[in-house]
């Protein structure tokens, strides 16, 4: 087990190196020279040279790449250009609000997705099944922007059921007062694609021999679906949920932006608007690392769920 984990971590190195080089190339060559942006409108040659020296831009490219690698390894990306706040502090403080929305959202989404998928698979092929699938396709076709605008306007602004936007100091206040509407919208957007996907996972299982055997020995259909099928369908479900977690951190940026939640996603949008490269670089590299680690965790969880899986 330890050997397996070590080897997987070792295999991540080339990919991680690729991510670092990609980000480096994007920001240092494609992105152009940020000096003039930083120096402002009334810059003289000395100020520009000074900024270049500070950023290491006057050094050859391999030295710059070295600086970047050192920044990643030491979690020290310097200060954000727009606000002067240390980038590591930005990431550390924005993670909490993001997770306050994302953890309940993911748990609810997965639970509802599984329950609905099993219920729909129970009546597979019927008119209900087909209507639900068509409803899912239509629901997925409406832009997430429309969901947010309409829900925020209808439920918060007109009906006053939720605060229109905002974020407080205390965790419980945030979770119970400010997070419910974003979570509700997140659910409205994500249940349709999740249900469609989970339904296909479940349908892959219901045709298997063990289901027929379970039926033959007289188990009630409910027990077959909720116990036997669910355990087997859990493997692809775990992959999907785990692999999507890091992406969700960014994916909720629209929710965070509309509701004024000071999370990672909103920070990325702000950074793109302000051309605040250190923040984007840091988030990109760390999210990529998180994605790889979560993929490994998903593989480790397989074994816990399914003893047949051999991690070699």
């Amino acid at each position: 087990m330890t050997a397996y984990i070590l080897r997987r971590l070792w295999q991540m190195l080339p990919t991680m190196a690729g991510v670092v080089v990609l980000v480096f190339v994007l920001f240092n060559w494609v992105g152009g020279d940020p000096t003039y942006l930083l120096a402002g409108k009334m810059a003289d040659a000395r100020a520009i040279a000074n900024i270049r020296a500070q950023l290491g831009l006057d050094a050859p490219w391999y030295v710059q790449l070295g600086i970047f690698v050192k920044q990643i390894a030491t979690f020290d990306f310097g200060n954000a250009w727009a606000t002067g706040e240390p980038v590591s502090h930005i990431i550390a403080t924005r993670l909490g609000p993001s997770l306050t929305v994302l953890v309940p959202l993911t748990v609810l989404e997965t639970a509802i997705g599984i329950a609905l998928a099993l219920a729909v698979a129970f009546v597979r092929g019927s008119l209900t099944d087909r209507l639900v699938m068509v409803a899912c396709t239509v629901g997925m076709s409406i832009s997430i922007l429309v969901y947010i605008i309409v829900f925020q306007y209808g439920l918060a602004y007109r009906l006053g059921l939720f605060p229109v936007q905002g974020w407080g100091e205390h965790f419980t206040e945030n979770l119970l007062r400010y997070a419910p509407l974003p979570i509700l919208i997140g659910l409205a957007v994500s249940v349709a694609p999740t249900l469609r996907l989970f339904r296909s996972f479940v349908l892959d299982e219901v045709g298997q021999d063990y289901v027929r055997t379970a039926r033959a020995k007289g188990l009630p259909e409910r027990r077959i679906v909720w116990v036997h099928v669910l355990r087997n369908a859990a493997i692809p479900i775990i992959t999907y949920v785990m692999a999507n977690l890091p992406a969700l951190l960014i994916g909720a940026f629209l929710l965070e932006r509309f509701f004024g939640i000071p999370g990672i996603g909103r920070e990325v949008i702000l950074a793109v608007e302000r051309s605040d490269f250190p923040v984007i670089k840091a988030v990109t590299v760390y999210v990529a690392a998180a994605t790889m680690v979560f993929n490994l965790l998903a593989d480790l969880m397989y074994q816990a769920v399914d003893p047949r899986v051999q991690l070699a």
Partner: protein
Amino acid sequence: MTAPGLHHPAVSPGLWTLAWRRLRADRVAMAALGVVCLFLLAVVLSATGLVAADWEDEVAVNYAPPTFVGRDPALAALAQPPAPAPPNAFDPLAGDLAVLKARLARQGQAHHAARRATLPFGADKWGHDVVRKTIKGGQTSIVVGLVAAFVAVALGTLFGALSGFYGGRVDDFFNWFYSVFTAIPSILMILTVAAVLQTRGVATIVLILGLTGWTGPYRLIRAEYIKHKAREYVLAADAIGASSRRKMFVHIFPNVSHVALVQVSILVVGFIKAEVILSFLGFGVPVGVVSWGSMLNEAQNELILGKWWQLTAAATAMALLVTAFSLFADALRDALDPKLK
């Protein structure tokens, strides 16, 4: 090859003929195809200037409501030409203004008189016709989605062909490249490239989406090439001395092109959604170009004033197209790859 005099066997239907037959039997797919074709027709008409070329004309009063809602009494007053301002003896520009007004009158530009109080589906902040604006915005969004999907699939096909056909080190390299791109979530990748490129423009969005979206097609096309390169027809092509390039793109590609086509249809849907979000955030189309995303951006503020029609128009048009396109893409996949069902 048939000897003369023998009865010619009926030509057996090919992949595309069979797929088309299966597709035709699917009523939902045909209805969806009809809707998609209507949208594409609107794009062509709008691109050639036959329709909606004049969307920027201020044809109605600001926020003119839809005809079926009825005129807004508060706004109807604006429909009347404004009363001329009382002459100001001290106006230093009076002479110049008189000349300009006379010129306008000669050109027949009775600008204010023509403004209408209602329109079939209302007007936006400046009095643009929402229907025409939606058509014009659809042109931007659909063209971006289609072109970006073709760019992404072309890249994915090229990489997948090289990777699957040559194998070995080439395959290792592209696999590494693939793992790098998939390690970064696509939306973050899109935002990162948007931050780096700085310039806003339709070509930029196409580039961003195309350069970040090739991974899905790559994986599938690579698998197809690995499967096909050992087939007999490729070995036969090899035996008559066909070059690698010819084998890859003349012999194998037609046999895997259906996979590429299905990928295009799937990506178009995702890219239209992505373009709308990018333009909404202001990282997409430049100022002065209208897309469904920029319409939603305006509509967000209008909704608070109770002007719901622009939001409804853009959202409905987009939902209709994306629903039809997704249903069609699903049917196309089933029709071209019946095993997958």
